[in-house]
């Protein structure tokens, strides 16, 4: 059941237009360029019309960088960036249904407690455990539960935010150098800069 991770993982955050077809464009890009998606999570953001995708891909940092740049080329992707491990917080939610013989229930509940997971459903022969944690912690929990017999497992895919006050931002054009360049070349800056690249 468990997929072996063959290489390092890179987490990419992308803000995208909430439009039909965006997911197809992203998926099509991954297929065409041969990138291997470990997980993909999409949801709304605080801003109307903008969704956030968190994509975990297998590969070196150079591949992570290429993926972000290729994503950013898509017109419907507003911005895309690689989230560095140490500088971001990543979480994932998993639901795990485990077989429980009455005599094993206590052991399983101990494991649940150690991992700060919780039980969200209980029947005579099974239990559903919910955990919200970093990828490795979920891996460790499932490893511990496997001997009892995992009936079903579902994971949301990772989501992540940059630590501290930094954010994955919409592009903005406050670069003074760029503004000066446009003025010197006689271009009239109107609204956000720059649009015309000649």
């Amino acid at each position, binding site marked *: 059941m468990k997929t072996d991770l063959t290489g390092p993982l890179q987490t990419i955050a992308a803000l*995208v*237009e909430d439009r039909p*077809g965006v997911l*197809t*464009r992203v998926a*099509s*890009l991954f297929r*065409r360029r041969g990138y291997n998606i470990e997980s993909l999570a999409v949801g709304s953001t605080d801003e109307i019309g903008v969704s956030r995708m968190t994509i975990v891909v297998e590969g070196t940092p*150079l591949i992570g*960088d*290429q993926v972000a*740049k*290729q994503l*950013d*080329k*898509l*017109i*419907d*992707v*507003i*911005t895309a960036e690689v989230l560095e491990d140490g500088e971001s917080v990543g979480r994932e939610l998993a639901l795990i249904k485990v077989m429980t013989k009455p005599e094993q229930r206590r052991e399983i509940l101990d494991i649940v407690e150690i991992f700060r997971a919780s039980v969200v459903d209980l029947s005579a022969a099974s239990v559903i455990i919910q955990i919200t944690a970093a990828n490795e912690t979920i891996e460790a929990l499932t490893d511990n539960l496997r001997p009892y017999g995992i009936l079903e497992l579902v994971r949301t895919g990772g989501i992540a935010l940059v630590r501290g006050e930094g954010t994955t931002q*919409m*592009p903005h*054009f406050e670069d003074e*150098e*760029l503004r000066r*360049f*446009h003025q010197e070349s006689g271009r009239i800056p*109107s*609204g*956000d800069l*720059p*649009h*015309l*690249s*000649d």
Partner: protein
Amino acid sequence: MTKISGADIVLKCLQKLGVDTLFGYPGGVVLPLYDRFPDYPDINHILVRHEQAAGHAADGYARASGKLGVALATSGPGATNLVTAITNAHMDSVPTLFITGNVTRSLLGKDGFQEADITGITMPIVKHNYIVMRPDDLAYAFSEAAYIATTGRPGAVHIDIPKDVFIEEAEFHWPEDVHIRGYNPPTIGASESIESATEIINQAERPLIFAGHGIILSDAAEQLQAFAEKGGIPVVNTLLGLGSINPNHVLSYGMLGMHGSYWANHAASSADVIIGLGMRMDDRALGRFEDMNPNAKIIHVDIDPAEHQKNIETHVPIVGNVKDVLGQLIKSINTSTHPDWLQWINEMRINHKESMSIPNGPELSAQYAISRIADLIGPESVLCTGVGQHQMWAAQFGNISRPRQFITSGGLGTMGFEVPAAMGAQAACPDRPVWTICGDGGFQMTFQEIGTMVAEKLPVKMAIMNNCYLGMVRQWQELFYDKNLVDVDITQPDFLKIAEAYGIRGIRVTNQEDVDAAIQEAEADPGPVIIDFRVVQQDNVWPMVPAGAALSETVESSGQI
């Protein structure tokens, strides 16, 4: 404000965009649009004979003029026939807009007659695409599409419009400003990158410029020359970069790559600093990536950041419009000369001249015919090609001297590009002679467009390098498949009878001494002309970097393979 039909909105959008020519083919779902054409006489619709040709013509039109090229097709087969042309234009970063009709909105997804999921099909081969579901959205789609196609790294954009959107009415509001938050094409390079690049260039002993299509697309030939001259840096071109610098310039050393010159390829693998300008470090130009030149420091200027570090490791990637970045670099670098380095390349050029020379005859060679065409028609003409041996010989001996003179399918390598692309170039440049060097194979893929040329009075001169073989494939079979020639001996029709069928002049040339007279006769003819050059049947393009080899392993004759 009064409401007008979606079809009228589309045509008004084209007017707003300054589109005066489009190449198209009618069909069921685009009839509401065609119905409105007579009211827009300033938009010249050129009726082609096959949709693929409409696409290539729009591509050739854009390359020759620098303006947006536009092609139009109906749904289903009309739309899928555009696919090769869309891919070709996009891969070579040509600003093009492809418009297709689709079935009525209520029938979308129901597999109705002539329905194809064309936006699904084009998604991976365009810069962006749209399916417009309301006539109110048409103006936004067109203004955005043209902006996206022509700015940043140019490319192909596709708009799909269901039939009833052409018919439904809406108010027409043209958005004067385009604002797309996910798309902000870069201009100048970041100052820290310019500083790093400047430092590397100033310390270089053997610097070399790879000048690509970006120089032509951004109209930066003047800046390229000024930069090369100030730094004393020799220039080699990619295939699509030919014309970015005059071949007679003292710092110009021709083309690099699979059929580039021996000296350009060796300069590339011996340089200590490589400056890639508006090019994408492609495998045909660079050979085996890891051994292209592992010791050089590489500066890579490209407007598309995704091209950096894609194929080879770059020390200083500079994201920006190459014209703007060159402006910065011209200011920042020291004036310099590299006499020893130039002498090294010059000596190599003298010693290896033989491997890229025109055969002495007496048989008629394609190299000779092409070089005579280039000489006689001059650099103010437009020279198009198909794909294969004749294309490489045109690149080597076409004396490409100015931007937009040379029109060829680089990235996709599309046989059959030559005839429709030349037709588009002629529509864009009615005052320039347009010649197209054709392969005898590629010519037979799209020569139906002679019908269009005759009807539209587009006097393209088609010079077929007829060796009765698919020459490049034959060359590979000879060199790499033990001379096992399979399915390359292509039976030819009588090309002069094709000329006759279309009512145009046809000339056959079998001797070297008749070449000039034939070219002059074609030039004097006011209409399209076919010249059937019966050239040496089994000749090879030299030099050559075998597929998978490094540039330093350039071979000059079959004995070295």
